């Protein structure tokens, strides 16, 4: 940025601060000011124009230093922008593109893009048809996502939302997707943890962290997700698929509420301003599956996070976000305390577009699995009568126990979906009598799959040759010896379900 004097002599417009209320400043003058334009105060601090009346301009401060009445302010003639470029990969930056880590101050990008723009029109969009893997078996099988989908991640504090986000970023970065993590008003230690995770897993070069801490001015925190989306749009236009994680929009809404209340906007429900829906909708609408000018198709997949309080997912911001996204993954506190990892509740979670991206095999598998889990849910109450329960009930409960064990996944552990399908089929044909044996074998299979080309080819061949779960089960029965041999696991008597 240039100096105040430079902008004053270039634009030849000046205003004087008339009133100042925390992060909102009112000035006169600046006759040709436009909305969202950056302004600079005589002490070098920046602000952005929020609204204008005939004789007053309302400015949102982007700094925490004090502004006094009578101070001079000048227009810059530019909207809020963020430098964009591949130079940012692996860096942690603020919404203005400035690196937060001192040791990573290498070259900065030459191109800039406006932070807050209107979403692309319908003519640039295409139906979501490619599936999006998260590396979390439960999500990939029961709540499948598509590239370009906006899926809300919702749950109470400490229910494993962040672990899920880590796993998804890890999986997608490994697949070559550019992952942008927007930390909105996060603790500095949390940002350091994310940086360390990206570094330790070796996905740094495919990721960007754009973060603001709770100590930053409200105006800067408010800009964080918009800046992240601008970065995502740049990489999309450069021909990459992008994943944007917004952690979290509940905090964003709270900071926006703070700004608007100081700005004397009329408070609505829960004291949020009337345009809170628009604020989030215009942000999330920038994600999707797009067709570029050269005819190629690239997606911005968005995972906004929202925190629920005491399991209440019917809050104002939560329901707003649910209605503007293409589904939600719900992290259940009860399941978490029972030890289920990930604590995703498949009955409350929804994916509105993910299923259309699924192969017939995955669709039939998902349907079968969900109907079984629904049956188990109904029969769960009979588990108290263990001795008196019928053999059918006992069998269902035993299989369900194995299925939940199969879904269990450690934090930061990413699963290969193709292999998971094979494992599930083995489980479904009752290959394992005991859960403990199953867990041991699954660990072996995961290990073998990672290192053996033969195992990977066999898995792919089995999956690609069929169109439904029943066909795959038949194929697995036929090739069971070969599968067990390739994966190096013991043969057990195969039963029937």
């Amino acid at each position, binding site marked *: 940025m240039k100096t105040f004097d430079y902008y*004053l*002599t270039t634009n030849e*417009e*000046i*205003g004087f601060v008339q009133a100042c209320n925390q992060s909102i400043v009112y000035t006169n*003058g*600046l*006759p040709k000011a436009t909305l969202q334009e950056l302004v600079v105060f005589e002490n070098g601090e920046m602000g952005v124009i929020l609204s204008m009346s005939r004789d007053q301009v309302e400015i949102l401060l982007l700094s925490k230093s004090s502004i006094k009445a009578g101070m001079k302010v000048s227009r810059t003639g530019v909207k809020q922008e963020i430098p964009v470029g591949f130079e940012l990969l692996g860096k942690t930056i603020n919404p203005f593109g400035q690196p937060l880590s001192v040791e990573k101050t290498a070259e900065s990008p030459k191109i800039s893009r406006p932070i807050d723009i209107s979403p692309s029109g319908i003519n640039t969009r295409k139906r979501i048809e490619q599936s999006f893997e998260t590396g979390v078996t439960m999500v990939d099988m029961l709540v499948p996502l598509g590239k370009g989908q906006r899926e809300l991640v919702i749950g109470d504090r400490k229910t494993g939302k962040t672990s899920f986000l880590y796993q998804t970023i890890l999986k997608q970065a490994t697949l070559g997707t550019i992952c942008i993590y927007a930390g909105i008003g996060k603790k500095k230690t949390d940002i350091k943890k994310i940086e360390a995770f990206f570094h330790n897993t070796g996905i740094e070069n495919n990721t960007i962290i754009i973060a603001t801490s709770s100590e930053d001015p409200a105006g800067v925190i408010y800009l964080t997700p918009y800046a992240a989306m601008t970065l995502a749009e740049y990489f999309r236009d450069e021909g990459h698929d992008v994943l944007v994680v917004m952690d979290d929009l509940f905090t964003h809404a709270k900071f926006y509420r703070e700004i608007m209340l100081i700005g004397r906007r009329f408070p609505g429900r829960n004291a949020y301003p009337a345009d809170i829906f628009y604020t989030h909708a215009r942000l999330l609408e920038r994600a999707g599956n797009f067709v570029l000018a050269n005819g190629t198709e690239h997606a911005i997949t968005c995972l906004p996070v929202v925190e629920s309080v005491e399991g209440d997912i019917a809050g104002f911001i939560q329901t707003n976000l649910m209605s503007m996204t293409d589904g939600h993954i719900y992290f259940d506190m009860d399941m978490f305390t029972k030890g289920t990892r990930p604590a995703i509740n498949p009955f409350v979670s929804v994916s509105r577009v993910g299923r259309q991206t699924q192969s017939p095999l995955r669709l039939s598998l998902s349907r079968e699995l969900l109907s079984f889990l629904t049956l188990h849910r109904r029969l769960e109450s009979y588990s108290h009568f263990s001795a008196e329960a019928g053999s059918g009930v006992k069998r269902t409960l035993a299989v369900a126990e194995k299925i939940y064990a199969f879904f269990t996944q450690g934090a930061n552990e990413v699963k290969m979906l193709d292999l998971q399908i094979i494992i599930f089929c083995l489980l479904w044909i009752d290959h394992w009598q005991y859960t403990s044996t199953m867990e041991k074998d699954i660990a072996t299979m995961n290990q073998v799959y990672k290192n053996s080309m033969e195992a990977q080819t066999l898995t792919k061949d089995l999956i690609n040759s069929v169109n439904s779960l029943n066909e795959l089960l038949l194929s697995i029965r036929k090739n069971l010896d070969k599968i067990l041999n390739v994966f190096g696991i013991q043969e057990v008597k195969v039963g029937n379900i």
Partner: protein
Amino acid sequence: MNNPALSDQIIAKIRTTSEVSQVLSCLEKFVETFLSSPSESDKEQLFKELPQEIAAILSASFAHQDSTPENYILVKREIDELVDRLRKCESIQLTIAFKPDDPTLTLFSDWVKKNVKADTLLDLSYNAEIVGGAILIAGGVFKDYSIRKNLANRFQIQRDEIVKLLS
């Protein structure tokens, strides 16, 4: 007693925003002491601090009024109108490199009143660093007609030429 010509007369004679502040403070004092200062000379004394012409107009309008409650109401109403009009006057901020004498200040003010608007005032400030010329601020528009700016532009052009020659 309602006299719209009075505010016009006063505004025509007031040149700067600092004079407006002086007039406002005198009028405030006058209203406060109206009932307690019985003589005309006491009342005239209050306007003595103001420029001569303005003081004469104000004295002629208000000093001869008897200190009765009825007159107080009428005088207060008229002064309130005058104050309101003075507060609404627009101003042009003018920064110059020297402190102008009285005739020069009148010359500046007359030019502004004639060419901009009759009730436009000057908000004068002095800054020797601008060397000469003037910096104008009006309605949020900033114009730097100072010699400092001209010199800076010339130096910049010369610097650019030297850089061009060297490269």
